[in-house]
């Protein structure tokens, strides 16, 4: 697609010699829900602040809707931000907070009230107009911050870990609401988070970041099912990472692993040679525990189990390869769950993903 709406071209930013953002280029489409995902200190917030004009890039250009805004100050940019701590003005009530950005529009009192009510209705905060900033819960503050930003009808809404401070249940509720809101207003969202589940649930596309660079930029499904590097695989969801060495290369690659023996996997466009050390990755839900032997399964010993409600996690050790353990997520295992008991582990080699070390 070439209908890119936000273009970040070769942007770098250093703080005291440390590169927070290291030569990043990316494009975001109009109306897209785009997430920057990474551990703290990976540069995702810095990149967001560069988009909002709160931080000047050391080099590179930033374009929104065909306009180069690299040198445009924050207050003249077509972006609005929802801050991590919400930054609700403590000396103003909800109504005044939401109306803050309307001053230059020179609206009549009635028009202002109308706009504020509409914005508050959008975030389901009707009736909270006169509340003080410190009389609200985290979730309510977050809604005020959203309303205050959306009332400006920005071309791009920037969200800096807006759900980070909320408890689990509220966070899940807000995720759904945020996604619905985004589809309703049709504004391009750039969302920063360290919570991979949140990024995968909400986004149209995700950029996984690490140490100032983009490790992978893809749809959530691609990121989850086809991580391109060990770093991404390790960061996204639970993943068993097994060491191995290339045995032979052809249409498929044979990898010798201490845990699963010789396995045949797809050569996913990696130029590898015989003898190279690689990592095989497989999700816990793609492993299957059985109480009886079956072709292709390996013998394992149960090391631990944990009941999670929707599934049970089992940690198993392959007999004869006690160095590495594997995690299995399974709902219907009928064998004995006693630690130390033996079982059989089955898997489909197609679910194994080869990653270069």
């Amino acid at each position, binding site marked *: 697609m070439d209908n890119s709406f936000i273009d970040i071209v070769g942007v770098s930013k250093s703080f005291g010699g440390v590169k927070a953002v290291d030569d990043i280029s990316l494009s975001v489409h109009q109306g897209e829900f785009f997430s920057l995902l990474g551990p703290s200190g990976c540069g995702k917030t810095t990149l967001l602040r560069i988009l*909002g*004009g*709160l931080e000047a890039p050391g080099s590179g250009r930033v374009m929104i809707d065909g306009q180069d805004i690299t040198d445009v*100050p*924050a*207050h*003249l940019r077509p*972006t*609005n*931000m929802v*801050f*991590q*701590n919400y*930054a609700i*003005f*403590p*000396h103003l*009530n909800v109504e005044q907070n939401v109306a*803050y*950005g309307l*001053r*230059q529009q020179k609206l009549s009192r009635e028009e202002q009230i109308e706009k504020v009510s509409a914005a508050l209705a959008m975030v389901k905060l009707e*009736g*909270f*107009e*006169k*509340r*003080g*900033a*410190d*009389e609200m819960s985290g979730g309510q503050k977050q809604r005020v911050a959203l309303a*205050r*930003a959306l009332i*400006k009808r920005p071309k791009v809404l920037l969200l800096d870990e807006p759900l980070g401070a909320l408890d689990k249940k509220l966070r899940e509720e807000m995720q759904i609401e945020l996604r619905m809101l985004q589809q309703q207003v049709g504004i391009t969202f750039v969302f920063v988070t360290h919570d991979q589940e949140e990024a995968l649930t909400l986004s149209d596309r995700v950029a996984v970041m690490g140490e100032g660079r983009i490790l992978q930029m893809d749809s959530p499904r691609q990121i989850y099912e086809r991580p391109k590097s060990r770093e991404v695989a390790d960061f996204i969801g639970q993943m068993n990472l097994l060491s191995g060495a290339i045995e032979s290369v052809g249409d498929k690659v044979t990898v010798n692993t201490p845990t699963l023996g010789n396995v045949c996997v797809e050569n996913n466009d990696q130029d590898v040679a015989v003898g190279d050390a690689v990592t095989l990755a497989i999700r816990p839900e793609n492993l299957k525990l059985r109480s009886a032997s079956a072709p292709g399964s390996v013998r394992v010993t149960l090391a631990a189990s944990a009941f999670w409600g929707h599934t049970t996690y089992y940690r198993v050790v392959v007999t004869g390869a006690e160095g590495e353990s594997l995690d299995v997520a399974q709902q219907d295992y009928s064998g004995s769950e006693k630690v130390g008991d033996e079982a059989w582990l089955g898997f489909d080699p197609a679910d194994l993903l080869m990653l270069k070390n």
Partner: protein
Amino acid sequence: MKQGTRLAARILGAYAVIYVAYLYVPVLFLPLFSFNDSIYISFPLRGWTFKWYESMLANDALHRALVNSLKVGLTTAFISTVLGILGAKAVTRYRLPGQKPVVAMIMLPLVVPEIILAMALLMVILRAGGSLGLVSIAAGHILLCVPFAMVVLMSRFEGFDRSLEEASHDLGENGWWTFWRVTFPNVLPGIVASLLLTFTISFDEFIMAFFLGSTEPTLPVFMWNQLRFPKLLPGVLALGACILIASVLVVLAAEWFRRRNTSDSQSGDVIIG
């Protein structure tokens, strides 16, 4: 063990009482003797009188000194607080080259003996061909007061979330409007505290006012002049009593303002949702 702690508590209690008495009892003698019908400060009191207050009200020189002190005090409070706001904002909001030495220089008047500052300023002003008077006194007081204003305001600026100003920029306000709509209301209690503190420091400052003044004395210098004549002493006591009451009122007003300000955001029409 328990007896030991009880004894310690008693000693501490006594210490606290003595400490407070030492601080405030001498101050209470001021209004007490200002009503005494005698020019000598000694017990027993000879009788009650308002005549010292009457003579005070009739004393034109005293009125002029009071007006001088108010002029110097208000000017000092205003200018040093404005400078303090600018300095505190710069120091807390930006990383400036050589910031630490610059701040140390601003704070220097806190530790340099005032008499040294006063003499140095006197020499500089005379050498530069300046004249002595209320302006030179105010200049000296500003030098003394800026560090105090800075300290008060810096703590206020530091305690106030930087992202609020960023949010204002983000919502379309430039630096000027952001200052008036966000920064100023949030640091206002600090500004009021700084105004009161610097005014008080200037109002009772003696050394600078003595060195850098001319024929027009400020109130402390005027009082000191009066003290040299025993028969004028009760008049000074009456004046002192008035200043005491005025300063208590100012402190109460400041405290009331502070409380009103912190509870402000909690009051108002609360809608329970």
